């Protein structure tokens, strides 16, 4: 049982630290989308029956206001509702339903798909990133899978080992992959559209959920090297993103004559000597092709030990002073090998906690700062029409103190002063709180 004083301390703690709690909540809200690994999750069971998907929830919208995806209960994979595509309900000719997914880069969403009696059915998934002009699309046709049965399906987006944003769709045994348009970096909306051949044909989708099973067929869900390699996948370093990721094991190259370790597959001297890294010799096992030992380049070290002064050109007293100076310096100067060893040892700290986490954070802040310095537009939507806020008024100029100044610079300086004033107010209150 706590005393009255302890109770007062506990219950008085939260109000006094409200500003910290609010700041942490803001950053958790911004970062919450980064922590999930599904594009979105929706089992569709919360919607009413026979409801257009563009009114089925805040995250679902339609490209023309009348959706052809409807929430139904006549055929579901699990739960009470699924969404189905129909052409006989009133709507536009080409409908896409959109689900707002937030900014996801590496994400996998599992769902279930059913083509019912379709003869020309297709479903297209298009991921658009935050500027809505770049994206990645994948499509499945009813000819790719068995109709009239539910198929376990996966939508996945990720960066490859180069600089490409990729998306893939797996429906049962069918698999397709596509490369996103240039500059695609994440997903904020998923457009889903469909088509069927006749009015009595249907497409059903159900149970969108996060997929996180790590196994040999889903290496991308393995988040650390231990589980990745335990499942037979490869732990690979993406130089472009400077991160490790889990990828399927590389395909074994065919055993044919080639460079490096493939030298042993070169069966003739001519084929062997054509390779730059191979040589033909007999080490007691008969003539065979072997790989040459690679020349190891010298380690690149930034710290160079200064060289001693040359005394050969001097004479008399200067020569002896030079020699004495070199002897004393040599007593204290380190050798290059010891300096190299220290440099490499200190370099090993970069991969250790907390240096690696701190360097990751500093590069994150510098990248965000550089990105925020570039000006962008503010999109708005009025009565269904997309547009952008017009800032041409910002370029209007006036003369202040004999200098031409634009309205943008004036407002910029004004808001900066306001922000600084607010910060100084906080600083004064913080100092008073401490003392």
């Amino acid at each position, binding site marked *: 049982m706590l005393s009255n004083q302890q109770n007062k301390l506990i219950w008085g703690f939260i109000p006094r630290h409200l500003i910290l709690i609010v700041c942490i909540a803001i950053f958790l809200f911004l970062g919450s989308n980064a922590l999930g690994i599904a594009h979105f999750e929706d089992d569709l069971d919360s919607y009413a029956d026979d409801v257009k998907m563009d009114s089925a929830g805040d995250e679902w919208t339609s490209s023309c206001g009348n959706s052809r995806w409807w929430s139904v209960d006549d055929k579901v994979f699990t739960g009470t509702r699924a969404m189905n595509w129909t052409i006989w309900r009133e709507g536009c000719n080409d409908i896409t339903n959109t689900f707002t997914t937030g900014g996801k880069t590496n994400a996998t969403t599992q769902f279930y798909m059913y083509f019912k009696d379709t003869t020309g059915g297709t479903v297209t998934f298009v991921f658009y990133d935050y500027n809505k002009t770049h994206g990645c699309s994948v499509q499945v046709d009813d000819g790719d899978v068995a109709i009239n049965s539910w198929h376990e399906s996966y939508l996945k987006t990720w960066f490859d080992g180069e600089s490409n944003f990729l998306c893939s769709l797996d429906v049962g045994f069918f698999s397709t992959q596509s490369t996103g348009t240039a500059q695609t970096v994440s997903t904020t909306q998923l457009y889903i559209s469909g088509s069927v051949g006749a009015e009595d044909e249907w497409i059903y989708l159900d149970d969108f959920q996060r997929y996180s099973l790590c196994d040999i067929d889903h290496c991308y869900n393995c988040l650390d090297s231990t589980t990745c390699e335990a499942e037979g996948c490869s732990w690979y370093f993406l130089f472009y993103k400077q991160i490790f990721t889990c990828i399927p094991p590389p395909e074994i190259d065919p055993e044919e004559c080639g460079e490096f370790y493939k030298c042993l597959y070169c069966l003739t001297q001519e084929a062997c000597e054509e390779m730059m890294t191979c040589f033909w010799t007999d080490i007691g096992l008969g003539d065979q092709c072997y790989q040459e030992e690679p020349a190891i380049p010298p380690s690149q070290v930034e710290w160079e030990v200064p060289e001693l002064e040359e005394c050969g050109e001097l004479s008399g007293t200067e020569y002896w002073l030079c020699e004495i100076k070199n002897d004393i310096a040599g007593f204290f100067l380190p050798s290059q090998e010891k300096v190299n060893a220290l440099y490499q*040892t200190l370099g090993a700290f970069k991969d250790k906690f907390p240096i690696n986490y701190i360097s990751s954070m500093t590069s994150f802040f510098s990248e965000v700062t550089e990105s925020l310095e570039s000006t962008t537009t503010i999109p708005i939507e009025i009565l269904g029409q997309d547009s952008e806020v017009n800032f041409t008024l910002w370029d209007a100029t006036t003369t202040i103190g004999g200098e031409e100044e634009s309205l943008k610079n004036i407002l910029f300086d004004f808001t900066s002063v306001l922000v600084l004033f607010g910060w100084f107010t906080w600083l004064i209150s913080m100092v008073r709180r401490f003392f």
Partner: protein
Amino acid sequence: MSIADIILGLVTWTFQKLVLPVLPTNLPALSYSEFNSILSGTLKHNLIYSFSGLSQLFNLKLLFILLGSIIIGELLYWLVKAGFFLVKLIRG
């Protein structure tokens, strides 16, 4: 072998045998690769997407630096107060 070689050898041996083996590469709850992918992936793009529109009106670099200093200051203040609070709680 110079004095500097001996000192450097001692320092290198200390780092290699006593310090580096103790330091972990990953935190138990959050591996480095997961941490880096969260920061440099979706969190960065989420921040850029959320605040890029304000760049026309505010000096975002200054805003984030000041906001970061407020958060760090409040966090330090909270840690100090939490320490005193725990002491009072234990003493009763």
